[in-house]
């Protein structure tokens, strides 16, 4: 019995090492970088004309009226403006400075030029904007923040980047790329499973009312679906389909045969959100995350000897699941 348990533990241990350390191509993470930076740049473009209304001291919600003051130690424009005020820098200039730094860092991130520095600046400035505009944020801002945090420590600039072009980094498979990909995949599993479970606790997601109520909202709905009241089974099927896609994600993305189907279903779900609810930036960002996590091959295809990494039995692990 002890031997059996020992063997089982050894097998589990080897499986775990393969899962988190088998060298993987950095391309999926490069896709994450490009997708996230691209979407956030487009989003920044649509917000640029309303900077002061959204984030300014005399915006729609003035800083002194912010319902939740940012905790100490969290970057925010209000704090930066107080720091720069003795230098004669106005609050509006502080807003411009943060936003310009954010956009510039996103451009650098998109190109993969000085990627790590760009990721740090983008992450901190996005956090400052998010914290200052706390009363106006929605899901896309949370995911942007998470994705930029991952860009800081994952090897997102090791492929399809100027840094790679300039020979600063190598696009050889690494264990860190594998770990980064696993973290992204597991994070998305938590996201979808918890989202599905929370939805399933509400009656609206069982009787179809959730789809009806979301698309019929005048501020969200992009098309008239009032006819759906006469085809209630369709609303119900869409709700149930959403629950299946979200709660099934954690089980279905690991096997090659079901991964593609789930990627298509999940991307379809977000494309639907973008088109029918007009939440294009949220939909596009989630699609970018899923493309990186599920669609870009991470499997090592080079000869096994090329995958040897210090401390990792690359040859044995090279064929590991993507």
């Amino acid at each position, binding site marked *: 019995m002890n031997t059996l348990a020992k063997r089982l533990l050894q097998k589990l241990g080897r499986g775990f*090492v393969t899962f*988190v*350390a088998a060298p993987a191509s950095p391309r999926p993470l490069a896709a994450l970088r490009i997708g996230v930076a691209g979407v956030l740049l487009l989003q920044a473009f*649509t*917000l640029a*004309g*309303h900077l002061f*209304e*959204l984030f300014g001291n005399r915006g*729609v*919600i003035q800083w002194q*009226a*912010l319902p939740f003051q940012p*905790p100490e130690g*969290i970057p925010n424009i209000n704090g930066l403006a107080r720091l720069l005020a003795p230098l004669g820098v106005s609050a509006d200039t502080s807003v411009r400075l943060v936003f310009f730094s954010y956009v510039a860092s996103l451009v650098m991130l998109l190109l993969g030029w000085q990627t790590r520095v760009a990721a740090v600046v983008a992450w901190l400035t996005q956090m400052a904007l998010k914290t200052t505009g706390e*009363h*106006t*944020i*929605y*899901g896309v801002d*949370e995911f942007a923040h*998470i994705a930029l*945090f991952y860009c800081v420590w994952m090897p997102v600039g090791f492929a399809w980047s100027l840094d790679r072009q300039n020979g600063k980094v190598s696009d050889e498979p690494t*264990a*860190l790329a594998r*770990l980064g990909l696993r*973290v992204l995949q*597991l994070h998305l599993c*938590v996201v*979808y*499973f*918890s*989202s599905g479970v*929370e*939805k399933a*606790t*509400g*009656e*609206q*997601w069982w009787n*179809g*009312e*959730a789809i*009806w*109520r*979301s698309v*019929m*909202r*005048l*501020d969200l709905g992009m098309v008239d679906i*009032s006819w*759906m*009241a*006469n085809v209630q089974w369709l*609303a119900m099927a869409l709700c149930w389909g959403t629950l299946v896609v979200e709660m099934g994600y954690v089980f279905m993305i690991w096997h090659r045969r079901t991964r593609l189907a789930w990627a298509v279903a999940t991307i379809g779900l977000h494309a639907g959100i973008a088109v029918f609810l*007009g939440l*294009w*930036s949220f939909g596009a960002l989630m699609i970018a995350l899923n493309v990186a996590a599920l669609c870009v091959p991470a499997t090592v295809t080079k000869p096994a000897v090329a995958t040897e990494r210090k*401390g*990792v039995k690359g040859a044995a692990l090279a064929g590991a699941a993507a």
Partner: protein
Amino acid sequence: MTLRHTIYTALAALHLILVACGAAHEMILEPNTDTGYTLMVARHYTGSDASYGFFAPGVGPQMKASFLLIDAHGKEWTDTLEGHMTREAQLRIRGGVSRVAEFPGLMKKFGPSWAATMFGRHPTAKTVVITIEVYELPTMDEYTRGEQPRWETIYVEPFDRK
């Protein structure tokens, strides 16, 4: 695995545990101690404090804020906070308005701020009347029986220019 990769893996595992706690709305430690506060800040930086209950357990009602402006001669006109904005900016402003449904106390802070925005935009206005309405949407069954969506006023407050 190398020692370095083992450390990275352990940190990643810790991060994912915190992510799962965030998703489950678990705070782990109250922020009223040094450790709790540090953890709260760390989770804020890493995004592991987020929860993901979008449109859950159900889709909330739409709310809108409208503004009636009145000048010294009694002339009246209306405006909105977000009418001139891009869709992405509109989503943000409307999200802020909808938060009033979640936290009614917010109007004490939002009301004067919105009024100040309107006075800034309309220098001749002497009074602004803020109206918050909620979009009452019938269920699909009610809709097929002929009920129609309607706006219901839930909050009205006038503000005078000081």
